[in-house]
């Protein structure tokens, strides 16, 4: 399975501080990678490096292109959405389609028109007349019609209502995704896309603290509702996170076998959000 995106030893310093410190990532065809982290963790800087928007040290290779030196050529095969609602307000939908057709070699105008035909957006409307949800649909139509192999999404659903968010991901999965393509998404709303991701990477203070595919992650982490009497024993096994509420202690374990845990209490699978909180808190200590 070929790697479409390869990042090695990516580092970006702002003065003394490293916004991104020795990050290694690789995304293969068919993967949907979520890059999750708190504000200031370095997600944006990583993405900027991938898109050739900033200087960096280390190597970044996307489909064989160097994003810094071959940016324009790379954008023929790489699509990205920085913010779903930034289409120019003065433009008409028909003009946007004409512009894309004239400027992007991989743009399939009829595909975009087909997509828009399913909405109730008229080609004669100006972007400023459309609601935010409709603008997202137009932007998505334009992106879907580019047969990009790599799609990079930077907090794509920020500020959108739930209906629009759901529609966004539905369309992405139905109309864009194939086994030959890959997607990188950065987001805060991990619960929403937890099941959509095939892989996840947690980033904190410029470093990747976890990078795993979502199946294995469920096997690796276990959430245990620990019995009162077993608490000390449980602590021996070094949980990465522990929470006590109303007499109930819940602990999160990383890589500890099922057998060792079964005597301590009820074992369940944590959600990705649970794992994220646990790992982040641990790193912060």
């Amino acid at each position, binding site marked *: 399975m070929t790697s479409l995106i390869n990042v090695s030893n990516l580092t970006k310093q702002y003065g003394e501080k490293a916004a991104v410190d020795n990050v290694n990532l690789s995304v293969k065809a068919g993967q949907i990678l979520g890059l999750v982290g708190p504000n200031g963790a370095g997600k944006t800087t990583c993405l900027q490096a991938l898109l050739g928007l900033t200087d960096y040290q280390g190597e970044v290779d996307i489909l064989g292109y160097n994003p810094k030196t071959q940016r324009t050529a790379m954008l023929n095969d790489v699509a990205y959405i920085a913010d779903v609602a930034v289409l120019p307000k003065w433009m008409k939908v028909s003009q946007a389609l004409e512009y894309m057709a004239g400027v992007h070699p991989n743009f399939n105008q009829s595909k975009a028109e087909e997509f828009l035909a399913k909405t109730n957006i008229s080609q004669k409307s100006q972007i400023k007349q459309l609601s935010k949800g409709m603008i997202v649909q137009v932007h998505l139509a334009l992106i879907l019609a580019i047969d990009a192999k790599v799609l990079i999404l930077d907090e794509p659903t920020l500020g959108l209502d739930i209906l629009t968010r759901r529609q966004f991901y539905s369309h992405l999965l139905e109309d864009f995704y194939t086994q030959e393509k890959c997607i990188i998404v950065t987001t805060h709303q991990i619960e929403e896309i937890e099941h959509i*991701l095939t892989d996840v990477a947690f980033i904190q203070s410029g470093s990747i603290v976890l990078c795993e595919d979502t199946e294995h992650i469920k096997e690796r982490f276990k959430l245990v509702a620990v019995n009162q009497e077993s608490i000390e024993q449980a602590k021996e096994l070094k949980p990465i996170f522990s929470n006590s509420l109303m007499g109930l202690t819940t602990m999160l374990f990383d890589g500890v076998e099922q057998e060792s845990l079964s005597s301590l209490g009820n074992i369940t699978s944590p959600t990705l959000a649970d794992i994220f909180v646990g790992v982040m808190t641990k790193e912060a200590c």
Partner: protein
Amino acid sequence: MSEQWNKDTPIYLQLYQQVVSRILDGYIKEGEALPSVRNVAAQYQLNPITISKAYQMLQDEEIVEKQRGKGLFVKPGMQDLMLSRERETFLTKQWPSILSQINRLKLSANDLLTNQGENS
């Protein structure tokens, strides 16, 4: 619509089970095609790999078969097969514990069948 998935079982297994139930109940008929991976991924907001795994399992269990270029189709006779499989699972795994509970509570067959609406 997104489903509420059980946290403790892998989602692909739950999906597999769901297809089996649908076949059993007759919602998916024999000879009918399963919806495409993309379609299901979009509807349920799951990644396509999860769906593929469930579909692969259905293929491995010979519940569905692949028709070139057309997708996955439910094999004939599946409804009956599902019925007998689920019956067996129920009788061997679930029934014994229900039976012992019935005995514990000293309920007769009459009680069980006529008191259906009473104790809600």
